[in-house]
């Protein structure tokens, strides 16, 4: 009896397997060809001096990796990317949390305000980087014109308050944002913060909604100020969300390319000041056709991102563990 049952089950099992594989067929084909195969192929390619311009490829072992690691341009790319990550991630998360907390209170126009903060996230990076290129223009850009105006107001106020003893305290001379390499990462950080703040805000709002309201009420009864209840209640309880956003922001930040390409019209900024890891891959693969070399660089990027993915996976496992 039991044996018969099992036999029937196995028969059904194999029938199910066949049916399941039919459902999975398109996914197998597409992922197999454009995800699984290239992942393996690019490891293989990274050990070759691989050029599209010739028939035969030469095995070079680890030479590509050695060359990349000792290439000063690659080091610049790493340093630039790190500076970008360190500048952008904390600011965009901090501001996203701030706006989310403010919007989470009982106020009017919540909907329209949320839309206003979120709008930059849906726009195409290319079109919006074009707009920022115009804003950063040295002579006719909005940024310098606004800063000039601001400097004028500040100087007038200071002169008035000090009875004319201090004039021109803020001597503003319009920086050339896009030509001066010192500003490159700052420019990119400003765009990234502006674009991702709303996204972070939405995720934080979802997290804030999970915090029971009565904790705040109890705290208020006990005489806690809003400031205290933020640091003692909101901040610790929202920390899993903060952590999640940090990791995905860091991973996203390591892939910076489009904004640099558009802001500097197909160049990695003045004197490589906007060179990023992905830009380095792009330049070697599609401007110099060194496919093996670029594959090795892409794998180094993968390794860096993988570390952050692992950290996130471990942490989220622990979180589920605590929850249950």
């Amino acid at each position, binding site marked *: 009896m039991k044996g018969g049952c099992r036999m029937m089950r196995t028969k059904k*099992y*194999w029938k199910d*397997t066949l*049916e399941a*594989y039919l*459902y999975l067929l*398109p*996914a197998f084909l597409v*992922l197999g*060809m454009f995800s699984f195969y*290239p*992942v393996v*192929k*690019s490891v293989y*390619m990274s050990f070759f001096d691989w050029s599209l311009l010739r028939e035969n490829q030469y095995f070079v072992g680890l030479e590509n990796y050695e060359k990349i690691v000792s290439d000063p341009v690659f080091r610049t790319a790493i340093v630039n990317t790190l500076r970008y990550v360190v500048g952008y991630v904390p600011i965009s998360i901090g501001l996203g949390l701030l*706006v989310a907390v*403010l919007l989470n209170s009982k*106020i009017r126009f919540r*909907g329209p*305000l*949320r*839309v*206003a*903060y*979120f*709008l930059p*996230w*849906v726009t*195409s*990076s*290319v*079109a919006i980087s*074009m*707009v920022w290129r*115009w*804003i950063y223009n040295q002579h*006719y850009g909005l940024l310098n*014109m606004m800063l000039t*105006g601001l400097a004028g107001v500040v100087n007038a106020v200071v002169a008035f308050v000090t009875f004319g003893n201090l004039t021109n305290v803020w001597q503003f001379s319009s920086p050339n944002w896009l030509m001066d390499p010192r500003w490159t990462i700052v420019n990119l950080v400003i765009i990234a913060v*502006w674009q991702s703040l*709303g*996204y972070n805000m*939405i*995720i934080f709002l979802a997290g804030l909604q999970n915090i029971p309201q009565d904790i705040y009420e109890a705290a208020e009864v006990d005489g806690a100020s809003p400031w205290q209840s933020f640091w003692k209640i909101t901040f610790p309880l929202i920390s899993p969300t903060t952590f999640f956003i940090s990791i*995905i922001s860091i991973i*996203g930040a390591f*892939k910076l*390319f*489009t904004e640099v*390409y558009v802001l500097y*019209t*197909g160049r990695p900024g003045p004197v490589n000041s906007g060179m990023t890891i*992905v830009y380095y*891959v792009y330049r070697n*693969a*599609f401007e110099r056709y060194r*496919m093996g070399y670029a594959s090795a660089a*892409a794998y180094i990027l*993968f390794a860096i991102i*993988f570390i952050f993915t692992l950290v996130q996976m471990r942490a989220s496992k622990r979180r589920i563990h605590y929850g249950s």
Partner: protein
Amino acid sequence: MLAEQQMWRYRLHKVFTKGILYVGLLAGAALMMLPFVWMLTSSIKAPEEITLRTIQWLPKAAQWQNYKIAWEAAPFNVYFKNSFLIAITVMGLDVVFSSLAAYAFAKLNFFGKNFLFLLFLGTMMIPGEVMLIPNYITMVNLGWVDTYAALIVPWTVSVFSIFLLRQFFLSIPHELFEAAVLDGCSRFKYLIQIMVPLSKPALVTVALFKFIGSWNSFLWVLIMTNTPTMRTIPVGLTYFVSDVGSYYNYLMAASTFAMAPILLLFLLLQKQFIQGIARTGLKG
């Protein structure tokens, strides 16, 4: 008397903090909107107004013809047609293929299920840039460079969509499935007639984000297209810059119509957008 005074002070304090809250939030929102506003007003300025050194918020007379000039200065109608064609096809195929795969993972027991699911999920951890180069070579070998196939086929299945739909399918009670199968409903019929209508919110989310992802995608289109007739809006726009140089009024007009479809879509489907992100926490 004292209690009344305290009450007043409390109220005053409340009104004051609320006032600061509103001013802060509105100022922030205005700052966020500023680039869009500047884009719009710049797009209707005359050439001599573009090169003013002081802020002029509105042009003396709106130069609507800037849009026409920009539109005709590059084959934008072709770029739009390409972007729409590719985004809609990619979206449609992804919804179909990913639903099928998600259904298998959610409702069927089969050989190698867990292994395959982990294999699929594993690709989500690998940055697309790693696959870029071998995929480019594949396209060269297939002779697909500069074709729609190259811009569509690789993006018709995404593990993210499969994962999201599987989660949603799992949340639909399994008893429903068993009852339907007992009544002689085939599994495929169950997917089409019951699962799909019940999963509308998840399907809309997947479709929406796929459409936007495709519309905004840049690097792949950049390396896969050589001829202007194959370009999409974002890539066309970067070439347009080198054509018009510093005529920022035309550039801003072009930027405006490049982002218009997505902005409209967002304003129409705000709720789905925001819920979709809050639910999935996806990064575009």
